[in-house]
């Protein structure tokens, strides 16, 4: 009896144990993964750790673009219990239009979509409102939002980002892969109240690389302010300014007008309005290009600044056309005067001596017709026809800056060659990448140092009395070299040059050891007031003055202000590269420089080069000339150049170098 009962008890125990074993088998083996997943879902949270996009700083560490964390709200429309109620709740919490939101939810639900952004980049208060709802079908996603704290400042340079924080222009686009961070993920073990107990880093976040630009914020602001003022004052269409360090190629400021605010998303059709005019919009440079012509002449011919150039009295007959200088025609003048007065005929004469192959070679050497390699998207290389495509008058046109298109950055690089002693540098805009200083590329010598110094000397004549840049481009306390340019804009439709101009000025200071190169361009100016010396030179003056002050460049001249009467008189002087072409002959020059002041009637300037200071002063005293000496040693540079006629009361500045 007892054995039977024991047997039954044992059987029950075996069955019980078997049942437990089967259950354990089910839990631990058969459905192990499901239950582990279930447990993880209950106990663990996947928390995304945002990796902010790299900040863009100016050269002094002032942020120009930065990302701050924000949140976005999304729902799974298929899990929303009541679309009508949901749209009411969400529209109240997120300040949205209820009907519009209901439509979106309905559409997403009808199309069986399991994900719908309700609102991106919400405010902190909106986030709190949604969080307080405590509804499990409303999800909040951490994101970051790009901000440009200076608004439109340097917008054309910085570019902007789209809604996914992907760069779509400017630096944001060029360095998108570096700026963009990789978000991390952490698995958080929570208790029943969803409080974190422990966390395990599954993927470490990698913040975007911060970039430090060569831009100087204050200088950028002044450049943008001045170009905006000038464009409005001269009713131009657009404008640009580039400030560059000629020694290492650093872009200190790059302004483009019209501006835009990168904080605002681009509107349809607005793409062209967001162009970087300094980099992407080429134009015919006009007389500023004469610097290249004369540099090539100094390098390849026996022409010197004092070499006589026949300006044919202001009229030059070429095969098929007649070219006039716009101002009262000059006869035979020193080559330096050709530049100072911006004589088109003189420049053509010089260009003819250089010849087509060598002119083409030097234009290419100065970097025209090719991109500068600046780290920005959508750069234009300008246009320079191949030598084989040059027409019979192409050399004449190019000698005075037509039949060629350039960008403001290309002009800045070309001016830097003269300013730094003959080295072609690659402009760059990245100062530091992730805290590591970026080494500038090695420059290439394209002209001899003496050629560059001679060109500096001649370019100084442009801003001295009698020059086309006088007096607006002069800087108090600093010597300046520069060149004005006023090119008529060619209308492709009518095949004629119009009476709107590209007014430009490129210059550098101080002359003996240039610290900055500034190039100003205004596109679409009108009348004589829109010429380079009238419209662009004042911008150069303001920007260069501020740049030299900000960069703490020591003055090299005593301050002197020209007499007001002289200022008023010189204000009318400018150069002009006009080409009213016939309908069948595009890009043919007919006219030359604008009519300027009356010819000076003073004595000619002697050549002081190589003389000691004592000899210079003795020679000048013998001729009744006033000398403004600078430096010590032997005379290396003088202004006005030798052979030019002195204005009444004009002084000769001579720079001595040991």
């Amino acid at each position, binding site marked *: 009896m007892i054995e039977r009962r024991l047997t039954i008890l044992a059987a029950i125990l075996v069955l019980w144990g078997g049942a437990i074993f089967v259950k354990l088998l089910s839990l631990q083996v058969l459905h192990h993964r499901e239950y582990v997943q279930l447990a993880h879902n209950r106990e663990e949270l996947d928390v995304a750790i945002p990796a902010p996009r790299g900040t863009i700083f100016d050269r002094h560490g002032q942020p120009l673009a930065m990302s701050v964390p924000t949140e976005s709200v999304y729902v799974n429309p298929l899990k929303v219990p009541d679309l009508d109620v949901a749209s009411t709740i969400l529209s109240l919490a997120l300040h949205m239009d209820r009907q519009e939101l209901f439509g979106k939810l309905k559409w997403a639900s009808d199309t069986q979509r399991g994900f719908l952004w309700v609102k991106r980049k919400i405010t902190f208060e909106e986030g709190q409102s949604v969080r307080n709802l405590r509804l499990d079908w409303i999800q909040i996603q951490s994101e970051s939002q790009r901000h440009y704290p200076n608004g439109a400042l340097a917008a054309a340079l910085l570019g902007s980002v789209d809604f996914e924080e992907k760069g779509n222009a400017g630096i944001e686009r060029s360095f998108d892969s570096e700026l963009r961070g990789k978000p991390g993920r952490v698995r958080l073990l929570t208790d029943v109240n969803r409080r*974190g107990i422990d966390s395990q880093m599954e993927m470490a976040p990698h913040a975007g690389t911060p970039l430090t630009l060569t831009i100087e914020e204050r200088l950028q602001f002044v450049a943008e302010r001045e170009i905006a003022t000038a464009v409005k004052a001269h009713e131009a269409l657009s404008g640009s300014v580039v400030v560059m360090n000629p020694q290492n190629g650093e872009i200190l400021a790059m302004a483009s007008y019209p501006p835009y605010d990168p904080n605002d998303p681009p509107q349809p059709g607005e793409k062209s309005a967001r162009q970087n005019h300094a980099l992407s919009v080429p134009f015919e440079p006009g007389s500023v290009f004469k610097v290249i012509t004369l540099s090539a002449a100094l390098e390849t011919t026996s022409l010197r600044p004092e070499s006589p150039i026949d300006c044919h009295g202001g009229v030059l007959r070429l095969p098929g056309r007649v070219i006039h200088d716009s101002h009262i025609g000059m006869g035979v003048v020193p080559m330096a005067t050709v530049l100072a007065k911006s004589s088109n005929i003189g420049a053509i004469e010089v260009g003819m001596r250089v010849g087509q192959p060598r002119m083409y070679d030097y234009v290419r050497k100065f970097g025209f017709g090719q991109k500068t390699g600046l780290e920005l998207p959508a750069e234009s290389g300008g246009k320079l026809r191949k030598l084989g495509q040059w027409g019979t008058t192409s050399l004449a046109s190019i000698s005075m800056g037509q039949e060629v298109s350039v960008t403001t950055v290309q002009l800045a690089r070309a001016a830097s060659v003269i300013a730094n002693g003959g080295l072609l540098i690659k402009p760059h805009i990245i100062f530091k990448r992730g805290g590591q200083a970026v080494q500038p590329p090695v420059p290439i010598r394209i002209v001899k140092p003496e050629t560059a110094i001679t060109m500096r000397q001649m370019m100084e004549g442009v801003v001295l009395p009698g020059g086309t840049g006088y007096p607006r481009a002069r800087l108090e306390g600093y010597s300046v070299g520069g060149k004005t340019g006023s090119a008529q804009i060619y209308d492709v439709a009518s095949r004629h040059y119009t009476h709107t101009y590209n007014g430009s000025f490129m210059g550098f200071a101080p002359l003996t050891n240039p610290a900055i190169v500034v190039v100003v361009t205004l596109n679409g100016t009108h009348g004589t007031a829109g010429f380079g010396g009238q419209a662009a030179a004042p911008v150069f003056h303001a920007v260069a003055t*501020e740049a030299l002050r900000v960069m703490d460049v020591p003055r090299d001249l005593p301050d002197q202000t020209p007499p007001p009467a002289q200022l008023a008189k010189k204000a009318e002087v400018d150069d002009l590269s006009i080409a009213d072409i016939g309908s069948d002959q595009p890009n043919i020059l007919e006219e030359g420089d604008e009519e300027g002041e009356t010819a000076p009637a003073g004595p000619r300037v002697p050549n002081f080069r190589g003389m000691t200071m004592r000899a210079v002063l003795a020679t000048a005293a013998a001729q009744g000339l006033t000398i403004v000496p600078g430096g010590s040693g032997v005379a290396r540079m003088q202004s006005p150049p030798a052979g030019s006629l002195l204005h009444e009361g004009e002084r000769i500045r001579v720079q001595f170098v040991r």
Partner: protein
Amino acid sequence: MATVPAYLKKTDEPAAALPVHRPAPVRAERNPYRLRALPHEDVFFYSKKIDNSRLVREADPRGRSACWSAIGAAGLVLVLLTGVLAPSVANTLEGYKLESLRAEQRRLLNERQVLQLQEAELLRPDRLETLAKRQDLVTPATDQVVHLEEKGDGAVAMVK
């Protein structure tokens, strides 16, 4: 304690030795060992008096040491359990603190970024220029900027 034999013995006792002329007491003396009868039951219980006054606790050193051993073992187990469990509990508590601090760190980093943005917005050049103009401040001309020469004695300026 009342037992069935005791009960039977008690119930039989009056019939076996019944005194003939014993005067009936006015009130029967209550048997101190007889308990109150159960209502409606003919069952009586008696309590049995056990006199343990003669019993003397005998000294048992082995039992005492066994007792102390048991107490010690229990204490040891308790200490071991505490030693094993305490780190885990402390780990959990510190985990709470750590995660709380991490969340606080993330919040503060985010807040710092927002503050940096606000600072940058306050320092924007156009705003500074507007403020400067409002206070009649102007950019100094080149001849107005005087750089003081560094002096070895620490003087920053010298009146000439």
